[in-house]
């Protein structure tokens, strides 16, 4: 199989998605993104109009779309689901971290 060499671009803290780019990459309309912003599901980086987003917003947008499509969650439910999922992820990470620390004392 042919292997292609490819330079990568790091999407660091400096990279920002415009509303247009986020919509294009997420395959959604601007109205949908603005609705997610209104529910606090997506948070723009500043007060700029139209809003601009960090790169992590794309992952969150994709999760939101999947959850809405697959589980038929409405927007308030979606906001709560994503918040709880964030919390669960944070707690899981913390459990892993603490367990790894604990193994030094066993």
């Amino acid at each position: 199989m042919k292997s292609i060499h490819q330079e990568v671009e790091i999407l660091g803290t400096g990279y920002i998605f415009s509303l247009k780019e986020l919509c294009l990459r997420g395959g959604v309309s601007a109205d949908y993104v603005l609705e997610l912003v209104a529910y606090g599901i997506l948070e723009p980086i500043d007060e700029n109009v139209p809003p601009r987003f960090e790169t992590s917003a794309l992952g969150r947008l994709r999760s939101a779309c999947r959850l809405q499509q697959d589980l038929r969650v409405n927007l308030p439910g979606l906001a709560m689901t994503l918040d709880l999922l964030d919390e669960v992820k944070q707690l899981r990470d913390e459990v892993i971290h603490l367990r790894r620390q604990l193994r030094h004392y066993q």
Partner: protein
Amino acid sequence: MDFKDYYRILGVSDSAAPDDIKKAYRKLARKYHPDVSKESDAEAKFKELGEAYEVLKDPQKKAEYDQLRSLGAQDAQGRFRPPPGWESASHFSSGGFTDADAAHFSDFFESIFGKGGSAHRTYNQGGQQRSFQMRGEDIHASLALFLEEAVTGGQRTITLSVPEIDDRGLVTHRDKTLSVKIPPGLSKGQHLRLKGQGAPGIGDGENGDLFITIDIAPHPLFDIEGRDLLLTLPITPWEAVRGGQITVPTIKGKVSLKIPPGALQGQKLRLKGKGLPGHPPGDQIVILQLALPEKAHPESDALYAKLAELESGFNPRARLGV
């Protein structure tokens, strides 16, 4: 090709009522949704559930499937073998697929019901226009790096499944191998973009991009906390009491660390700039842990007795009230 038991996948009996099938699907879909579940095979399970429900919720497809199942269309090894001359009465390309991701249905499904036609997952909730000139979809993947790789960078070969539209307008998948130069100093959750390496565009549409989310594999010695690296360092009681110079591993090689006299269990020492690279770089935090020899030297016992006598005023359990 294995015979897929859609009833077993949904955990229902073959006499289950449509409502029970729907309930079972909804419950399992919540459990195995890739955005919710922590199971590593959640995505595969979720797709399987979608496929099973696609068949069992539709009376016509269900009847066809039941017929095949009752005909025993599988050999002794459980592999699927459709009866000679079998042809599905269902037509899926005309909007038969509703909410499941038809592009990912199994060969087993396709051998019974045919290919999913133009149906594929899109998220254009707000009515985005799609025309014959269309930008290729972005592909999202994750890549787990060893901590050393994340620090120093390197070359990694990754293989991706890229969706393509064939001449008949059907979605097919092709494996593509990329050699990716990993820049140094990556951290967990960071995103990389490989321009134009997503799905090919249609017509004059440009290719999609490939987004890679970085993950860092657990390291046997170091834990990561932000940009700092944590290392638990066992030391002897005499090293703790008397202090001294100790050789310590860091992610970039060994360094010498000075233990201050009177060091305590759990005490943290900082090796500045020895954490993950960055501006500023993180530190390595060394956590001291007292260790005793598993088997004491024959003469040690007398020395411990002497020590007990000299330190008789020390009660490590004072806080426990005993």
